[in-house]
C-alpha cells in the first residue's frame, strides 16, 4: 500500500472533510482516507495496482474540492547579470530548458531574473548555474523557495483575502444594519436621512438596502457556489446552511421590493436585506479569525521546518565551498564553524566541539562531540570547527523524520474525533429538517405570518452551523503534538494521544530505561583456582562476542584493567541466560542462575555472596569452568537520576508503575526499592516480555510500555501505548506510539500529562462547538417563545456562530502554554 498526503482546498467544515473521506474511502483499492480540516490535508493509503493517485484526485475534484498538485520540483529565482536584450533572455531559457530535470524556466529581462522549476534529484543547481555562466552571463545570489516558505505565503494570502472580504462586506453591511435598525430603536433618536424614511419613501429605502447588500453577497459568493453544490449532491455542509438562510432572507426581501413598487407599502416592514448582509459579514469574520488561528496552531511544524539551514559548506577538491543544502550528498565532507547550524546528519571525522541539540530534543546542555560521534541537522555548533561525513540527507535526516512524524500525527484522527465526524455528517441535514418543520409549524401556528415563520427558519439554519465542530479536535491535536515536539516528545497520532490519557499502568524496562544502561563491573569473587584478575580475564574473553550489555561490561572491566583477552574457540549465546564458550579446551559458562541450573552447576558455594550482591542491587554473573563454579562477577547499572522523580510524578498521576527485567528477582527488587517501583516482573526472558504486558492487560489495565524500542519492540507493540525512550531510530519510531527523544524518564509523565491535557482540551472544544448549537437551536426554533420567552434574531445567531469558532480556536491555543513540570521547576 502506498501512502500519500494531498493538499485539499475548499473545505469549510467537518461535513466537507467527512464527505471527502467517505467518497475517497469508497474507491476500490483505498485502504484508508483521513482528512485533517485544520491543516487542509488528505492522508490516503491505497493500492496503486487497483487505484491510481490521479483517480483519487479526480474523485475529490468531482465533489467540488480542489486537490493542489504538489510538484516535487524546486522553485528557484536566479538574478542574472549581463543580459542586454530579449535575445539574451531567450538564449538562457533555451539552454536551461535543455537540461534534464528542468521543468520550466522563465527569464524576465526587466527584472534580470530567471525563475526556474527543477527536480533536484535529477539536476543540481550548480549545473544550472554552470550552464548559464558557460554562455557568458553571471549568476548572482540565488533565492530558493522551500515548502515551508510556499506554505507560509499561501496561508498569508488566504488570510489577506479573507480579511479583505470581511472588510468589504463590513463597509456595506454596517450602514445597512444602521439603516434597518435605527428607526426601530426605542427611546433613542438617531440621525436618519429624511429621504430614506421607510414610511414615506419605502421604495427608495428598499432599493438602497438592496444596493448595499449586493456587494456583501458578492464577496460571500463562495457560500453559495460551495453550499448549493453540496446541497445538490445531497451532502449539505455549513455553507449550505448559510446559503439557504441568506438566500431565503434575500429572496423574500426582493419579493417585497416588488410589492412596494406595486403599491403595497406595508411590505417595507418585511425587508431582511440586513439579515443576509450581516450574517455573511459575521461568518466571514469568524473565517478570518479561524485562518489566523490555524496558522498559529501549525507553528510547531513550521518552526521545525525552518530550523534546517539553507546552505552547507562542503570540501570540494580541498576547498571549502558553500552550496545549497539540497546539493549535499552522502559521503560529502561538511565543514561546520562555530555559530552555524548542522546542515545534514553525519559522523564527525575531525575536530572537537559542543553541539546544542535543544531545538530537536529539548536538552538544554550542549553535548560534546568528537570524531566518531553523530551530529544531527539543525543542531547548533557552539564552540569549535568540525568536519563530518554526511550520512543522511534530505528526507532521511532525523529532523525530516521528526517533521514527517509530527505531520502524520497531526493528520491522524483520535477516536473522539471520528465520533464528531459521524455526528457532523448527519447534523446538517437534521438541522435543515428542524428549520423547515419549525418554520412551517410557526407559519400555521401564527395563522399565516410568513414573516415570523421566515425569521424562525433563518435563525435555526444560522445558529446550527457546525463551523466549529470540524475544528474542535484537529486544532487541539495540532497544538498538542506540536507542543510535544517542542519538548522532545513525538506522539505518533491522535489515537495514541487518546489512549495515553487512559493509561493506569506503566511498565518500564530496566536496563537502559530505569538505569543508565552502562553497567560496570563492581565485584569479582573468585571461588576456584583462578584469582580475581584471572577470573575476570576468562569471563571477559568468553563474553567478547556477546552483544549483551552485561557481557560488554565485563569486557570493558577487563580492558580497563589492561588484561589481555584469550582466544575463544567456540561461542554460543543462550538467550535470557548467558553464554557458553570454549577457551583453551575448557568449557566456560557465564550467565545467570538459570543457566547454571540448566547446566547442572552447583551454586552452593556462591549463594551467600550472590545473595549479598543481589541485595545491593548488583547483578551476579556466575562463571563456571568445566562444570564447576569458578566465581562470580558482579555487574551494576547505575539508576538514572531522573528515575525516582519520574516514578513519583507517575504516582501523582495515579498510575501504577511496574518494572520488567531479565535480571534475578533480588537484584530487581533492590532496584525497585531505590526508585519506588510498585510491581516487579523479574527473570523475564526477552521473548516473554510481550506476554507479561498481555497479562497485565488481562487484569483490565490500560498498559504503557517504556523501552528503548530496539529490544522491546514486541512488548511495545503489545502494550496499549508503546513509548520508546532516548532513541530516534527508525525501529523505535516504527514500533512505538510515542518516541521520547531524550533519555530523561521525566518525559514519560510529561507525555502522559500532555496527553491528558490535550484530550481535555478536545472535550472542551467539542463542548464549545456543540454547546452553541444545542442551546441555540431550540431558542431559534421558538421553543422559549411558546412560553413567552425570547426569540433569536438571525443576526445574533450569526454572531454566536462566529463566536463558537473563535472560542474553539482560542481554547486550543491555550495548550501552547503547556509546560513540562521539569521546566516549571527550573523556572521557579
Amino acid at each position, binding site marked *: 500500500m502506498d501512502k500519500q498526503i494531498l493538499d485539499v482546498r475548499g473545505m469549510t467544515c467537518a461535513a466537507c472533510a467527512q464527505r471527502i473521506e467517505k467518497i475517497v474511502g469508497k474507491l476500490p483499492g483505498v485502504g484508508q482516507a483521513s482528512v485533517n480540516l485544520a491543516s487542509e490535508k488528505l492522508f490516503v493509503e491505497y493500492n496503486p495496482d487497483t487505484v491510481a493517485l490521479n483517480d483519487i484526485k479526480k474523485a475529490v475534484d468531482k465533489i467540488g474540492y480542489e486537490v493542489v498538485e504538489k510538484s516535487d520540483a524546486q522553485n528557484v529565482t536566479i538574478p542574472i547579470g549581463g543580459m542586454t536584450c530579449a535575445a539574451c533572455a531567450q538564449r538562457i531559457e533555451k539552454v536551461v530548458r535543455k537540461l534534464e530535470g528542468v521543468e520550466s524556466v522563465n527569464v524576465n529581462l526587466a527584472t534580470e531574473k530567471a525563475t526556474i522549476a527543477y527536480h533536484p534529484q535529477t539536476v543540481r543547481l550548480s549545473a544550472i548555474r554552470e550552464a548559464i555562466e558557460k554562455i557568458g552571463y553571471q549568476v548572482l545570489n540565488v533565492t530558493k523557495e522551500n515548502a515551508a516558505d510556499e506554505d507560509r505565503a499561501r496561508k498569508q494570502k488566504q488570510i489577506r483575502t479573507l480579511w479583505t472580504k470581511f472588510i468589504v462586506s463590513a463597509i456595506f453591511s454596517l450602514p445597512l444594519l444602521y439603516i434597518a435598525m*435605527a*428607526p*426601530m430603536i*426605542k427611546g433613542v*433618536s438617531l440621525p*436618519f436621512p*429624511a429621504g430614506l*424614511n*421607510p*414610511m*414615506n*419613501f*419605502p*421604495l*427608495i429605502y428598499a*432599493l438602497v438596502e438592496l444596493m448595499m447588500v*449586493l456587494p456583501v453577497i*458578492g464577496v460571500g*459568493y*463562495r457560500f453559495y*457556489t460551495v453550499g448549493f453544490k453540496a446541497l445538490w449532491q445531497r451532502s449539505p455542509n455549513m455553507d449550505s446552511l448559510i446559503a439557504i438562510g441568506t438566500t431565503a432572507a434575500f429572496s423574500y426581501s*426582493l419579493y417585497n*421590493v*416588488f410589492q*412596494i*413598487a*406595486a*403599491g*403595497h*407599502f*406595508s411590505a*417595507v*416592514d418585511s425587508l431582511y436585506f440586513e439579515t443576509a448582509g450581516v450574517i455573511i459579514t459575521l461568518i466571514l469574520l469568524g473565517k478570518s479569525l479561524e485562518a489566523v488561528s490555524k496558522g498559529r496552531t501549525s507553528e510547531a511544524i513550521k518552526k521545525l521546518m525552518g530550523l534546517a539551514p539553507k546552505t552547507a559548506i562542503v570540501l570540494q577538491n580541498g576547498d571549502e565551498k558553500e552550496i545549497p543544502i539540497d546539493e549535499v550528498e552522502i559521503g560529502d565532507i561538511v565543514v561546520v564553524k562555530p555559530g552555524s547550524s548542522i546542515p545534514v546528519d553525519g559522523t564527525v571525522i575531525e575536530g572537537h566541539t559542543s553541539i546544542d541539540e535543544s531545538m530537536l530534543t529539548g536538552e538544554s546542555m550542549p553535548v560534546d562531540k568528537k570524531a566518531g560521534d553523530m551530529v544531527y541537522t539543525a543542531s547548533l555548533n557552539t564552540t569549535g570547527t568540525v568536519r563530518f561525513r554526511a550520512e543522511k540527507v534530505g528526507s532521511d535526516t532525523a529532523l525530516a523524520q521528526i517533521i514527517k512524524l509530527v505531520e502524520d500525527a497531526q493528520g491522524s484522527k483520535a477516536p473522539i474525533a471520528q465520533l464528531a465526524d459521524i455526528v457532523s455528517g448527519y447534523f446538517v441535514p437534521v438541522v435543515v429538517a428542524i428549520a423547515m418543520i419549525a418554520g412551517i409549524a410557526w407559519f400555521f401556528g401564527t395563522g399565516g405570518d410568513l414573516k415570523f415563520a421566515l425569521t424562525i427558519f433563518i435563525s435555526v439554519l444560522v445558529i446550527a452551523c457546525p463551523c466549529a465542530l470540524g475544528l474542535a479536535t484537529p486544532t487541539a491535536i495540532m497544538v498538542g503534538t506540536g507542543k510535544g515536539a517542542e519538548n522532545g516528545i513525538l506522539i505518533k497520532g491522535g489515537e495514541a494521544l487518546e489512549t495515553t490519557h487512559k493509561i493506569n499502568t506503566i511498565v518500564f524496562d530496566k536496563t537502559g530505561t530505569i538505569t543508565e544502561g552502562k553497567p560496570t563491573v563492581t565485584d569479582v569473587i573468585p571461588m576456584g583456582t583462578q584469582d580475581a584478575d584471572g577470573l575476570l580475564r576468562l569471563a571477559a574473553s568468553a563474553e567478547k562476542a556477546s552483544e549483551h550489555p552485561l557481557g560488554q561490561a565485563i569486557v570493558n572491566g577487563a580492558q580497563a584493567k589492561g588484561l589481555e583477552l584469550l582466544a575463544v574457540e567456540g561461542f554460543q549465546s543462550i538467550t535470557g541466560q548467558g553464554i557458553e564458550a570454549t577457551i583453551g579446551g575448557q568449557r566456560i559458562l557465564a550467565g545467570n542462575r538459570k543457566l547454571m541450573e540448566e547446566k547442572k552447576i552447583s551454586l552452593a558455594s556462591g549463594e551467600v555472596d550472590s545473595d549479598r550482591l543481589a541485595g545491593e542491587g548488583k547483578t551476579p554473573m556466575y562463571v563456571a569452568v568445566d562444570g564447576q563454579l569458578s566465581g562470580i562477577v558482579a555487574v551494576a547499572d547505575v539508576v538514572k537520576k531522573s528515575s525516582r522523580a519520574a516514578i513519583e510524578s507517575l504516582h501523582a498521576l495515579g498510575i501504577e508503575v511496574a518494572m520488567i527485567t531479565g535480571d534475578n528477582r533480588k537484584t530487581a527488587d533492590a532496584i525497585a526499592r531505590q526508585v519506588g517501583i510498585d510491581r516487579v516482573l523479574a527473570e523475564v526472558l526477552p521473548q516473554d516480555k510481550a506476554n507479561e504486558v498481555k497479562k497485565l492487560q488481562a487484569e483490565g489495565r490500560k498498559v504503557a510500555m517504556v523501552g528503548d524500542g530496539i529490544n522491546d519492540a514486541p512488548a511495545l507493540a503489545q502494550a496499549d501505548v508503546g513509548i520508546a525512550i532516548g532513541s530516534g531510530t527508525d525501529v523505535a519510531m516504527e514500533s512505538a506510539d510515542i518516541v521520547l527523544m531524550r533519555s530523561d524518564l521525566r518525559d514519560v509523565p510529561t507525555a502522559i500529562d500532555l496527553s491528558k491535557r490535550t484530550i481535555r482540551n478536545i472535550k472542551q472544544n467539542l463542548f464549545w462547538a456543540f454547546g452553541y448549537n444545542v442551546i441555540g437551536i431550540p431558542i431559534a426554533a421558538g421553543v422559549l417563545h411558546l412560553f413567552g420567552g425570547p426569540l433569536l434574531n438571525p443576526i445574533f445567531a450569526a454572531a454566536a456562530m462566529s463566536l463558537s469558532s473563535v472560542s474553539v480556536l482560542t481554547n486550543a491555543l491555550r495548550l501552547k502554554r503547556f509546560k513540562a513540570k521539569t521546566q516549571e521547576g527550573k523556572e521557579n
Partner: protein
Amino acid sequence: MKKNTKILFAAGAAVVVIALLVVVFQMVGGNLDVVGKQSVASFDAVLQAIPDQITADDTNGGWSLLAPDGTVRFIWSKDYSKSPLHDVMLELDAKPFVDAGLDTTKLPSNYASFDGMLMVGTKLGNEEFKYSDAMTPLSSYEQIVKNYRASINYHTALDHYGVKLGDGNMFEWAKDMTKISATGKDQDKDIVFVLNPEPLIAAGVDPAKVVGWVYAQVPVEENGKTIQVYKFLKPFNIV
C-alpha cells in the same frame, strides 16, 4: 473557482441586477416616490367620492373639502403667493372647544379665530404655481406633492396618507377606502381631521368635555420612528 468562471458569474449577476432594477422602474413608471405618486390617486378617489363637498374657496385662495357633518373643512391653496393666511389649513367650528373651556386669546399664532370658527394651518411657501393643465383641486394637491413632498406622509398601520398642517395638525385620507392593505380589514376612516390637542389644552380646553371630536392616542411618525400621541380626531367613512 476559476477566474473566467468568476468573471462570467459576476457579469451574469450584474445583468440580473440591472434587469431587476429595470422591472422595478417600469412598474413605478420611472418615479421612485411611490408614496407621493399613489397619494395623488388616493386623494383623487376622495375627491370623486364626495364631489359635492369640494368647492373653490376664493376667500382663502384655494380649495375646500368639507366634512360630511359640515363642522370642519380642509383648505389647500391654489397659489402660495396669494394665500391670505395659510397655504394648507383646517377651518373648524370653535363651539365644541369653547364649550370645553377654550380661551381663544391663549391660542398660539398658527391659530386664527374669526366668527366662531378656528383656523389652524401653516404657510408652505410663497411661490406662484405654474399649472400645465387646468387648475383643479387635484392639480393643486399635486403641487404640494411636487414642491413640498416633506409635507406628505404615509402611515402603514392606518394605511393613511396625510398632509401636515404644522404643529402636529393633519388632514388624512385612506389609501384605499375599501380596506386597510396591511391587515385586509375594512377601512372605516376614509378621511380624518386631526388636531394637536396640546395648544388647545394649554388654552383651557378640557379634552373630556369636547363634543364631536375623539380624544385618543394614535401612532405617528417622528424621525422615522412610530410613537403614540394624543390627538383630537374627527374621522368619516365616506364610502
